């Protein structure tokens, strides 16, 4: 009860109530808030799924207390409170969808039951059962024939036939005896339910029920007569539904479907108007104004326009368990609550995380609205059946800072890009058409460049062309020129200091050669100070002493006076001395 910030939500919520053993097992689609007594105090209405196949109940809470319970015959798929008539005082009815039926409660008492129309039955199936009834075929035969119908039929078999096909052989006789006299029925079940205002946008205006079925249909029901006002078909089974607008004016039904797509249905179109194909399956769907926020199984939250244009996508820290809208018009607050599997509930405005609520258990259903007399109440139920009520502080403010990593706001600002020229368009077309060839040509050229570079390198290594010093402190470059026909040659070594500003001193040149072949006038020479950039020619004379017409390599070393290893080495391929022939 203390207002100490223990839940890590920045002190924005007051912990009004937490009952970890409330025994409420439900989802966001089966929970609603409504003023069921006409005293301006909202009650919490929950379709409790119970545990397993029993304990399904319609439960009503007032404040912290459970005030009413009604048993449900089947698992609830959805629950909505809606105004079905104009009677005073304005008290809404509660509709619970389960199986093929909608159970309507008024004043918390069963009032009306609507059952979906049965589906067409495969005539072949009907024939086969007819024959079984008349004793023309035995159960084994019946089984075979039904099996073949099941395989090729475009109209699916009834539940009865499917059940029959799954029986063990010792059970079939009894089953046929039991059911053969009864007519075959094929029923679909309701997967999701929503409400649609009939003709006014008033808070307490009469609403139609909108239901999605396992048969991929969407029905809109008249609130008073419970007749089908409108039927629309989807390519696949709807699982989550959002409805906005008015039936008589214009409306929009957004459904997330089992094939991982979202379809948008409009008035006067039997087929979906827009389709969003998601990259993974939707878990939650919430409309915020005109946009939609979808939570997917790949731990992402995505925003779309009402026409299906993707606006943004963010990655969440854990899988989504449930989602709900947080709408507080008196404070101009519209956001999306996302329950996560890591025991957190995140509040997002667009892609920005406004607040994080830590919960003691994973949240499975969320509902935000007026509860009791408090407008900003957040109701959550947990996996372990707990009930949690938090109230938004009157003083709470949510900073709309862009806290999520991702493209900065500036990125979505439109740049003034000039119009595309014809040349640009032609080039783009060419690139699009010849992409492969261009890519190949590029790789061919790249390979050629590499080969040329490698060759040049090898050549430079082999011929010691203008060797360069690898020392960083004394960068040197040298080339050698041999002049003359022999036996006397003039050897000129051009040395250059390639440093940008530092001169090099105390250098010397030494030669290594076969002294049976050559004699060098100055085998050791001192080099003057090398000013950066200038080329210094160092000359000496080489005498070839052999007369056998052979030549050899003379190795040149540029040395620093204090170092034993040379700074630079060059190999000079001496030409064959031709002078001997003359003499």
């Amino acid at each position, binding site marked *: *009860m*203390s*207002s100490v910030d223990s839940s890590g939500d920045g002190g924005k919520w*007051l*912990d*009004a*109530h937490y009952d970890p053993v409330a025994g409420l097992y439900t989802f966001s689609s089966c929970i609603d808030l409504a003023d069921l007594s006409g005293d301006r105090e909202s009650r919490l209405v929950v379709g409790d799924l119970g545990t397993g196949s029993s304990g399904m109940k319609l439960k009503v809470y007032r*404040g*912290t*207390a459970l005030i009413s319970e009604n048993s449900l015959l089947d698992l609830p798929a959805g629950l909505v409170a809606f105004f079905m008539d104009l009677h005073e005082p304005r008290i809404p009815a509660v509709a619970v969808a389960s199986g093929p039926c909608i159970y309507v409660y008024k004043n918390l008492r069963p009032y009306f039951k609507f059952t979906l129309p049965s589906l067409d039955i495969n005539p072949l199936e009907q024939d086969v059962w007819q024959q079984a009834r008349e004793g023309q075929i035995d159960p084994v035969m019946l089984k075979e024939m039904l099996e073949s119908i099941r395989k090729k039929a475009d109209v699916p078999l009834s539940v009865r036939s499917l059940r029959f096909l799954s029986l063990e052989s010792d059970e079939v006789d009894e089953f046929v005896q039991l059911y053969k006299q009864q007519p075959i029925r094929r029923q679909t079940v309701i997967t999701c339910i929503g409400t649609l205002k009939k003709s006014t946008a008033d808070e307490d205006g009469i609403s139609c029920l909108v239901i999605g079925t396992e048969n991929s249909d969407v029905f809109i029901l008249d609130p008073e007569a419970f007749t089908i006002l409108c039927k629309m078909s989807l390519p696949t089974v709807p699982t989550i539904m959002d409805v906005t607008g008015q039936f008589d004016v214009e409306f929009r039904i957004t459904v997330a479907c089992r094939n991982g797509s979202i379809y948008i249905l409009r008035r006067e179109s039997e087929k979906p108007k827009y389709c969003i194909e998601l990259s993974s399956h939707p878990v939650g769907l919430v409309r915020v104004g005109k946009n939609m926020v979808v939570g997917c199984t790949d731990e992402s939250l995505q925003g779309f326009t009402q026409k299906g244009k993707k606006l943004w996508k963010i990655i969440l820290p854990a899988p989504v368990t449930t989602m709900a809208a947080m709408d507080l018009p*008196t*404070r101009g607050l519209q956001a999306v609550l996302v329950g996560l599997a890591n025991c957190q509930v995140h509040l997002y405005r667009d892609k920005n995380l406004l607040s994080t609520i830590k919960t003691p258990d994973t949240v499975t259903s969320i509902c935000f609205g007026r*509860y*009791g*007399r*408090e407008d900003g109440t957040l109701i959550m139920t947990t996996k372990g059946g707990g009930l949690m*009520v938090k*109230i938004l*502080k*009157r*003083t709470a403010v949510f900073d709309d800072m862009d806290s999520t990593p991702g493209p900065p706001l500036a990125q979505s600002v439109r740049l003034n890009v000039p119009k595309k020229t014809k040349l640009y368009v032609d080039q783009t077309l060419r690139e699009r058409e010849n992409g492969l060839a261009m890519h190949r040509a590029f790789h061919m050229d790249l390979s050629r460049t590499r080969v040329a570079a490698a060759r040049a390198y090898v050549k430079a290594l082999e011929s010691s062309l203008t060797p360069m010093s690898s020392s960083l402190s004394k960068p040197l470059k040298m080339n050698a020129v041999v002049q003359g026909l022999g036996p006397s040659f003039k050897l000129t070594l051009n040395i250059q200091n390639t440093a940008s500003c530092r001169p090099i001193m105390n250098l010397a040149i030494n030669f290594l050669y076969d002294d049976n072949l050559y004699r060098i006038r100055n085998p050791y020479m001192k080099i003057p100070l090398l000013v950066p950039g200038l080329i210094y020619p160092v000359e000496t004379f080489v005498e070839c002493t052999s007369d056998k017409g052979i030549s050899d390599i003379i190795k040149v070393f540029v040395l620093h006076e204090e170092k034993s290893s040379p700074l630079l080495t060059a190999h000079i391929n001496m030409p064959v001395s031709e002078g001997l022939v003359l003499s």
Partner: protein
Amino acid sequence: MGLLDKLSGWLGLRKKEVNVLCLGLDNSGKTTIINQLKPSNTAAQEIVPTIGFNIEKFKSSSLSFTVFDMSGQSRYRSLWEHYYKESNAIIFVIDSSDKLRMVVAKEELDNFLSHEDICNKKIPVLFFANKTDLRDALSSVKVSQMLCLENIKDKPWHICASNAIKGEGLQEGLDWLQGNFPFLSSYRDNGENGSQN
């Protein structure tokens, strides 16, 4: 006739008008309490409520009551804070049967007590744990625990269980209030409380 006659009689010793601020969440029973307190001849002057903001005022001789709902929208907050400065005593009404909103009442009380015009004033605060006649109502002890009243150290305070419809508990509260007006105490015992107010 009215429960206030005695109180205002006491206060009549002073020429100055005394402002009592009656606060609490909506539906806690403030209007009902005030109606019980009103002398039969006092004409209530009610300011027309704007959405989310509702002020009631009435005067009885030297006593002026201002009542408002502490819930609703925050943008009206500055309107009621305007009355804090001139207040000489506070009546804070709690709906003891509204367990869910006890945290909201506490939040509003804490905000109120830490307001700059209130926190340094040693004015008496009277709590009515109202609607104790209802079956699921909390006791006044429980209410005072949930509101952490023991933390109020610098102001005289008192909590009374009440049933505003029948008027039960109101007299006890007013008797306490009478004995705790700072200027009344100072009138009686100048030495101790003279520096207050």
